[in-house]
């Protein structure tokens, strides 16, 4: 067992008090390696809670710079950060929250070319991206590499999330293939209530910490969605689909490709 310093014992005391976490669980969090893809609306609360929780290694990949229109919901970025790479802005806040955390940044897009290299060193992956081609790419990369991940999506007043562990239903089991280009608007086209990002992102952070500590039951084979206008939460049971293009019996997706990305013009901004 590692030795936490008295400061660390105090910092993490509310975790350590939890019967399902304790010193052992906190040690698992400390040894955890999590990759967060996208340092935007979802990535912001995910990163801040994982940093506060003391996740030992956090990777962040995002190719964007902070824009004024991000600040309504991307709470890890401040007004003075406008124009700064999001990965850098996020890293500064994480280090200010908790110097125990080792942060690795990739100021880049998550692509078929770098996907496997990026996820290889991490225990758990968090999808905080906003385009379908990348969401499907994250799913395919994680399924093919046997990595657990959390899917998250938000739009207007709605949010949706599921957790995938190897062997459980994947994102393609519920959504076989990306919707046709422009069939579904993005937040930059349709808007999103800022706090929705926090609601959904904190669920993803909780799933990550549950995975690292082994506490509770991961939200696998279930799709959770909520609407903040009614505050109704709904869980739909998912099954691993024999016809799933990536995890089914006769998969058509056996390697990663950019083809679906090129077919989609759901451009950022």
């Amino acid at each position, binding site marked *: 067992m590692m030795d936490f310093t008295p400061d660390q014992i105090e910092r993490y005391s509310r975790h350590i008090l939890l019967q399902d976490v304790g010193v052992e669980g906190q040690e698992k969090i400390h040894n955890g390696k999590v990759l967060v893809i*996208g340092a935007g609306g979802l990535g912001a609360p995910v990163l801040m809670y994982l940093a506060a929780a003391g996740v030992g290694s956090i990777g962040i990949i995002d190719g964007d710079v902070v824009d004024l229109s991000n600040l309504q919901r991307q709470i890890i970025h401040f007004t003075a950060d406008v124009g700064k790479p999001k990965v850098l802005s996020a890293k500064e806040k994480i280090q200010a929250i908790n110097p125990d955390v080792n942060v690795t940044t990739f100021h880049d897009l998550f692509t078929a070319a770098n996907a496997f290299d990026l996820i290889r060193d991490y225990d758990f992956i968090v999808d905080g991206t906003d385009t379908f081609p990348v969401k499907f790419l994250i799913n395919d990369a994680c399924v093919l590499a046997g990595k657990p991940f959390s899917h998250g999506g*938000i739009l207007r007043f709605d949010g949706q999330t599921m957790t995938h562990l190897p062997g459980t239903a994947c994102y393609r089991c519920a959504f076989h293939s990306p919707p046709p280009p422009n069939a579904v608007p993005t937040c930059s086209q349709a808007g*999103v209530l800022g706090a929705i990002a926090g609601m959904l992102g904190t669920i993803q952070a909780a799933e990550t910490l549950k995975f690292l500590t082994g506490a509770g039951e991961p939200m696998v084979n279930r799709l959770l969605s909520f609407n903040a206008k009614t505050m109704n939460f709904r869980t739909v049971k998912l099954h691993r689909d024999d016809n799933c293009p990536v995890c089914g019996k006769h998969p058509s997706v056996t390697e990663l490709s950019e083809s679906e990305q090129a077919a989609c013009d759901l451009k950022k901004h």
Partner: protein
Amino acid sequence: MSRIKVNDELREVTLPITLTELIQQDNIVPDMVSVQINGTLLERAKYDDTAVSEGDEIDFLFFMGGGSL
């Protein structure tokens, strides 16, 4: 009228009705949803040819892409 369940809620529909028609009744564009009938995922290409039956439990799963920007 026949009774079905859509997203856990009871609904009365007049049969015959295809899945595409059911989706359009809700002002939803069929491309925007993934559909499970009685727990089994249905391919989008089959919405037009799939007839809804009495007692079906249908789940609309919506594509939600936002998060980063």
